[in-house]
């Protein structure tokens, strides 16, 4: 094995990949949340569709989208590989384990939270991204995503699934954001406070912003 693949398949290398792809996906969340928040202009989707069209057709964005799909795949596959090797590292479990005394439940549940997010991701992309891109591929025309949102979020079960997805995202980010910096070796007394503050704020603000979208449409605040 070359030194490069040896590095990336080592325990620390796998965590390096998780951290880099995790932070990349966090940067995607910033863009995704910002553009989708344009629906709150409540202008019949005009501003939202303007930026949605830009994101869906700009060649640079479309190229970066390939990186985004790769980022998701690496994060998911690497996460599953880590889950497997970490489970194998303790074949016999403790009869009594008081893990709550030394760590938070969500830091110990990143695999579970990630799996919930993966299920959500499949549902979410099958609502919007996959039909839109397939239509672009087939006809070259974009679908009216704003209209699709208004229709999709009339179903209370769908709204509930989206809110639960945001709850999973909150807990996943609350540990993942700070954990990524530690995995990259960025643990320094001068910056730890800022990383912790930004991480917590980000984990709260972004999922709430996302959750407000289906809720606002369902309740008719956004039309």
């Amino acid at each position, binding site marked *: 094995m070359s030194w490069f693949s040896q590095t990336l398949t080592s325990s620390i290398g796998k965590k390096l990949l998780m951290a880099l792809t995790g932070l990349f996906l966090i940067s995607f969340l910033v863009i995704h949340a910002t553009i989708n928040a344009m629906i709150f202009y409540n202008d019949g989707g005009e501003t939202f569709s303007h930026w949605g069209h830009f994101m869906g057709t700009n060649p640079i964005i479309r190229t970066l989208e390939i990186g985004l799909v790769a980022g998701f795949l690496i994060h998911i596959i690497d996460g599953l590989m880590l889950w497997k090797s970490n489970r194998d590292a303790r*074949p016999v479990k403790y009869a009594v384990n*008081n893990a709550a005394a030394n760590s938070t439940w969500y830091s110990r549940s*990143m695999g579970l939270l990630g799996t919930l997010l993966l299920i959500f991701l499949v549902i979410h992309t099958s609502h919007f991204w996959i039909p839109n891109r397939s239509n672009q591929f087939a006809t070259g025309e974009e679908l009216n995503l704003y209209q699709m949102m208004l229709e999709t979020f009339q179903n209370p079960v769908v709204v509930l699934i989206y809110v639960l997805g945001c709850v999973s995202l909150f807990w996943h980010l609350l540990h993942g954001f700070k954990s990524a910096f530690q*995995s990259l*070796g960025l643990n320094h007394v001068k910056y730890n406070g800022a990383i912790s503050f930004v991480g917590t704020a980000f984990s709260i603000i972004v999922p709430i912003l996302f959750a407000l979208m289906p809720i606002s449409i369902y309740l008719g605040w956004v039309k």
Partner: protein
Amino acid sequence: MEGNMRLSLKVWRQSNTDAAGGFEDYKLDNVSPDMSFLEMFDVLNEQLIEEGKEPVAFDHDCREGICGMCSMYINGRPHGPLRGVTTCQLHMRSFKDGDTIVVEPWRAQAFPVIKDLVVDRDAFDRVISAGGFVSVNTGNAQDANSLPIAKEAADDAFAAAACIGCGACVAACKNASAMLFVSAKISQLALLPQGQAERSIRAEKMVAQMDAEGFGACTNTGACSAECPKEISLENIARMNREYIGAKFSSSAV
């Protein structure tokens, strides 16, 4: 005696590595709150010997918290309920009259049970042998002050060197990861001038050995540091990540 406690124990018994183990229940009627946890086990073992039964095998040596031999997963936590102490320094006053105490060995693929509560921690020794040392020519010791070392570096190296290699970090970690141990051993040398010559190859080899032993990866839950009897800091794991990634991408070892 007045103030002594009655305790119920559930202790893991396993005759050898390959045998199936299980819990045995024991009762102790006269436990002094001033006994250490290991002394309580001594009392139990005397009782078992008098009854003609096999005493419980457990690791212990210095009984003053510095050798790293004692282990025991007590009521779901390595070294029991207190922070910053080893099992030998845990006293029965940390428990209440009538308590049931569950005692298990460390659980990890890399730490097979030898007998009862004794696990094989040779994996740690092999990680050290892979690079946790400084190669020097023997001869007279240098003058203590001939190498200037910054106070902070000396303090951090000393704090990392406080690791006694007991394995509580592995026991506490949900992934049975040895990162706190290995990072302490890498850090104590990486911070000092004497460790510079072999700095990158040390990080590469010790991490490779750690992985080969079957320890898990790090999820940064912080359980290891919270349970460490020497309170080794998580900063060491971040340092090891820097050392390892830096070494891998810049060393001449292809």
